[in-house]
């Protein structure tokens, strides 16, 4: 048994380093950019009128639709459509790109809701305090609201990232030989699918645990300004 585990480890780790981790990291980075953008579109209520305000309403409609569609359909299907479906309308993406796009859009949809609710949870008073000092809306967002929202958003976003790491296993359906697929291929030879599954589960657990530790470290750091009771 140990022999099987050890002999399969190098291929699994290679797949992890080559696909699982880069996929998760890159997709999460892009996902967060999307999430912040969408969260702001839904959160802000800029004082504009005329055409601009119609445009903003449209933007918000698109954002709502995007969040709805990506949260209410299975990720597997999303990947499938992006990779196998888009070519039929002339958009052909390499597998890795397609995977990054799919995972980013999915993470972006979930993340945007998390970020929006964190923004909303920062007291309205903080906005008043900033405005009275002359801060503009973007300045207030960036210097006052976002740092406070960050602390709130960290635990749920970390969970989403951990979820994403595990979800990368779905990339196998769009021809990416990530860790999970490699484990299946090895199992085809040694006929120990269960053992291979446990092994790959352990590797995921390992990754996720490292991430959790990192999350706690970040949480502690980011909450350094909440020393007393807070108030």
């Amino acid at each position, binding site marked *: 048994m140990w022999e099987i585990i050890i002999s399969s480890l190098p291929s699994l780790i290679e797949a992890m380093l080559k696909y699982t981790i880069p996929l998760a990291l890159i997709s999460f980075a892009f996902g967060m950019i999307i999430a912040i953008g969408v969260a702001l579109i839904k959160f802000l209520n800029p004082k504009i009128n005329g055409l601009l305000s119609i445009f903003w309403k449209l933007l918000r409609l698109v954002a709502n639709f995007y969040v709805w569609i990506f949260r209410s359909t299975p990720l597997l299907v999303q990947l499938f459509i992006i*990779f*196998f479906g888009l070519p*039929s309308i002339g958009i052909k993406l390499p597998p890795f790109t397609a995977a990054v796009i799919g995972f980013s859009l999915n993470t972006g949809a979930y993340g945007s809701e998390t970020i929006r609710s964190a923004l909303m949870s920062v007291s309205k008073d903080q906005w008043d305090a900033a405005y009275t000092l002359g801060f503009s809306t973007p300045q207030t967002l960036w210097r006052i609201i976002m740092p406070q929202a960050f602390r709130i958003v960290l635990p749920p976003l970390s969970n989403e990232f951990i979820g994403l790491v595990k979800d990368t296993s779905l990339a196998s359906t769009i*021809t990416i030989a990530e860790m999970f697929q490699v484990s299946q*291929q*090895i199992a*085809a030879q040694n*006929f120990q*699918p269960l053992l291979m599954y446990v092994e790959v589960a352990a590797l995921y657990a390992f990754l996720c645990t490292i991430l959790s530790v990192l999350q706690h470290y970040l949480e502690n750091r980011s909450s350094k300004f909440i020393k007393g009771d807070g108030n």
Partner: protein
Amino acid sequence: ACGKSQSETKTPGTLTIGLEGTYAPYAYRKDGKLTGFEVELAKDTAKKMGMKPKFVTTGWDSLIAGLNSNSYDVIFNNMAENSKRKKQFRFSKPYVYSKSVIITKKDSKIKNYKDLKGQEVAAGTGTDNWNNAKKMGSTPVSSPDFQTSMNMINQGRVSAAVNSREAFEYWKKSHKDTDLTYKTIPNNVIKPDAIAPMMNKNSSALNKKMNKALDEERRDGTIKRLSIKYFGTDITNK
């Protein structure tokens, strides 16, 4: 499906081959490398066509979708010719003839294909085995891989599995004391499946080149050699 020339492959000079890579002895991973009968055969075929082989592995569910979207040029994945598939896709010349068998426990009440009626039978979702199991009046139950099918029989979750004899023979090599055996299915019930490379309908030029290469491999004994290497017998003919 809007390529410039019909014979053009996904990448010029490269034959991109789609397969699952999770089905021994056809294709699987050993010591970190993809290997197996179909892997070696596809490599040799590409060489004979003057092209570089490139393998793309994907799940069974998306194997056909990948062909539709030109993610690869051809599938070498124990793909059996049947009329439905032929309507949609183009098959090259068969390289082996795979015999479906009924795998059961030695003491099973299932003595032949007729006993399969009404029984639950393990097979991959939407595979030929799945269709064959249905054809014989049994209820197919989805199984993700070969070993799992065997486990399901052993655990009594299904009474049998329909799968290729070669796969079972290969598996038996590493499970000598197994309690499982197989029963053949008469050819008039389920014909031996002609296994061939499968590609898009519009890849006729590619098909021509591939057929030439396959003919050559037949002539110089490559296919036979690989068959014996991986299956222990020659299954290159009907």
